């Protein structure tokens, strides 16, 4: 590290100047992409990148501040998306007029009974059943509770799917839906954290990735609630849609630009708000305590800090941002498609953003989020261009054209992402704008 950085200019060593330089460089990249691909297209990239910056900030709280390994990002994005569908999608009258709500009420009752059963079973030590027998009773209670729940949910789900399609939404404002996404994520994060935060890093990574797959399987297959693979669209926007602007007399290209600008402004405002809070928290006593726990949790514990409790706090705060970001993404694309969520696109890419940007440094993470998202998007057309040129050469050589260029070029970005992360780990393990450690 030191040998490499000594040789470069002094501006590079100063983190502030380095940050400014990199942000200016990114501005020119955005400008260049905007000129080549058109204004509407760069606005689309920027809006999604803003949402990803919010998600990356969430991961930065967990990994950068607290050293917690979270591979469940995809799960939280899906939870955020599904929550905003539930709150902001127009009301489905076919469901409310059917027997669906009644049946769901019975499901809720069955669920409550199951929970009560398990809670009661956990207290059997009061009547003298302890040790192995208590474990057996608790396991039996879980099993019986599960069966009670299944007897109610299975017919209810089948009925709703056959009569009304799915539950539908509540028709509330999308911004409320985003907040609800954050809230649901927080609740889920609390339970995930309770279960898994005691584990060591590798175990935690695998446990969280497993939980995110469970969440995906649930959301994908609960057709009665989320419509599953049949997808929900179109989702309402908090700002005017292009179609509404067209009705108001804008031309079609203009309407897309203005509609996306408004959405972008809204999401940037949210990002700035979150950034301000996260940055303030980092500098304050709370942030110092978190870094102390990250760097040496044994020492922090012996100073009287509640290590697991604080880590749970971090995990929840980070997950709230992820849920909000996921909800924004779903609203912006106007479609909630559970099968469109992939660990590569939604978990690993956010990790690359945080590590390339600089874990622990919020400026770096935001930079990394925009940079990686732009790289991710433009490596597809770039690869397509390269392939098309190669294809011309192979045709001239008499080998024939390269087949399926479109789908192959799309895969190029996965490869590029892998190359970027390995290079970053090898040559800039602390990221583009590293965390500044003040030693006083």
């Amino acid at each position: 590290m030191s040998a490499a950085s000594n040789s470069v200019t002094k501006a590079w060593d100063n983190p502030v100047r380095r940050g400014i330089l990199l942000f200016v460089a990114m501005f020119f990249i955005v400008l260049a992409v905007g000129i080549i691909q058109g204004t509407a297209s760069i606005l689309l990239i920027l809006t999604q990148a803003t949402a990803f910056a919010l998600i990356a900030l969430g991961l930065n709280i967990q990994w950068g501040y607290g050293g917690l390994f979270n591979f469940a990002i995809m799960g939280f994005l899906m939870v955020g998306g599904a929550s905003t569908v539930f709150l902001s999608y127009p009301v489905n009258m076919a469901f409310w007029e059917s027997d669906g709500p009644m049946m769901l009420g019975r499901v809720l009752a069955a669920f409550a009974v199951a929970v009560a059963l398990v809670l009661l079973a956990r207290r059997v030590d009061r009547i003298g059943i302890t040790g192995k027998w208590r474990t057996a009773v608790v396991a039996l209670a879980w099993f019986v509770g599960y069966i009670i729940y299944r007897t109610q949910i299975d017919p209810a789900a089948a009925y709703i799917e056959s009569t009304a399609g799915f539950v539908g939404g509540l028709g509330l404002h999308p911004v409320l839906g985003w907040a609800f996404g954050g809230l649901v994520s927080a609740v889920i994060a609390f339970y995930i954290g309770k279960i898994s935060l005691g584990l060591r890093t590798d175990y935690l990574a695998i446990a969280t990735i497993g939980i995110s797959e469970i969440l995906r399987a649930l959301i994908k297959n609960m057709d009665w609630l989320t419509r599953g693979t049949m997808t929900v669209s179109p989702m309402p926007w908090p700002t005017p849609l292009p179609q509404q602007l067209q009705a108001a007399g804008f031309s079609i290209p203009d309407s897309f630009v203005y509609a996306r600008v408004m959405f972008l402004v809204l999401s940037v405002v949210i990002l700035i708000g979150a950034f301000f809070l996260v940055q303030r928290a980092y500098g304050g006593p709370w942030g110092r305590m978190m870094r102390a726990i990250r760097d040496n949790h044994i020492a922090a514990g012996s100073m009287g800090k509640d290590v697991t409790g604080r880590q749970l706090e971090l995990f929840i705060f980070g997950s709230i941002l992820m849920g909000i970001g996921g909800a924004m993404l779903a609203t912006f694309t106007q479609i909630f498609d559970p099968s469109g969520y992939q660990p590569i696109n939604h978990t690993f890419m956010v990790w690359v953003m945080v590590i390339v940007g600089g874990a622990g440094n919020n400026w770096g993470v935001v930079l990394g989020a925009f940079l990686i998202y732009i790289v991710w998007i433009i490596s597809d057309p770039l690869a397509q261009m390269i392939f098309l040129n190669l294809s011309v050469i192979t045709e001239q050589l008499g080998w024939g054209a390269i087949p399926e260029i479109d789908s192959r070029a799309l895969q190029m970005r996965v490869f590029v992402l892998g190359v970027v992360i390995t290079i970053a780990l090898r040559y800039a393990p602390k990221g583009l704008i590293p965390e500044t450690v003040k030693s006083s």
Partner: protein
Amino acid sequence: MDELIFFINRVLISGTVLGSIYALGAIGVTLIFGILRFAHFAHGDMMTMGAFIAFLLAAALAAMGITFPLPMAFVVLPVAMVITAILALGIDKGFYAPLRARGAKPVTLLIASIGVTLMIQGLVRLIFGSGTRQMYVPGESKDIFRIDMSWAGGSRPINITEPQLIMFVVTAIIVIALHFFLTRSRLGKAMRAMADNADLAQVSGINTALVVRVTWVIAGALACVAGTMLALDVALMPDLAFNIVLPIFAAAIVGGLGHAYGAIVGGFLIAFAETLAVFNWTAVLRPLNNILPEGMELPANLSLVPTEYKLTVAFVILVITLLMRPTGIFKGAST
């Protein structure tokens, strides 16, 4: 009797197939964890890579007009294993060794292995496209052996396919060979010593660099076998093994990370739990309908978990294991 045959076909055979694949993968994961102390996420893609290498070799042989009574992909397996092992060594040299030399934490290596995952997956799809292929060269077909059960009063046969039969044999041979390697050979003992305590092993004069290389060779070769077998049993696709790398990790953890026998047990445990959980018990319990009183019939579907949730069974077991016994069934290594 038919119910029992149905049970054997649906649970015993498919569970053993899945278990063999999980076990072979989990052995690699657990060995790497034992020696190098990091969770190697790219293992699933090493399996896919091995399967594609076997596919290429088989296609090349078939193009030369050579035929065998066994599936071609199985015949070329030893060569594919060697190639995959060399590639695994190359991946270690190129991506993990520099990080280890810098003294990076295991977490950094884990993230690096995700980078490797992405690169292999991108490359495989770049070269082979994202479609599904058949592992069989033209002219070959998946032979199915039907064992007639009429002597025992069954009307339906027990079905077992040729690749499944080969897989049982190969897995058994590999497990036995690995057992003898780890317990009898000098190198195997050195490996176990290093998994127990790396510093102590080095001080006692064990060539740790050699042990690391042998670990990668074994892990790569086993990944190739598991990937090829999986592709022979199902079909060859770029995300073939990426989807099962998580159950493999679950198997390794349930068995105790760093513990080779634990990985085998864990693999079969997870596989049977998955198959039993989605198994429709009505098919077996149907004779009970005769005993049950009038008006009480067994429902048409009596599986514990709907089929869509098959993959989640592994994670539920994983979470329970982590809560109840974090070191796994056999006491595993820790970071």
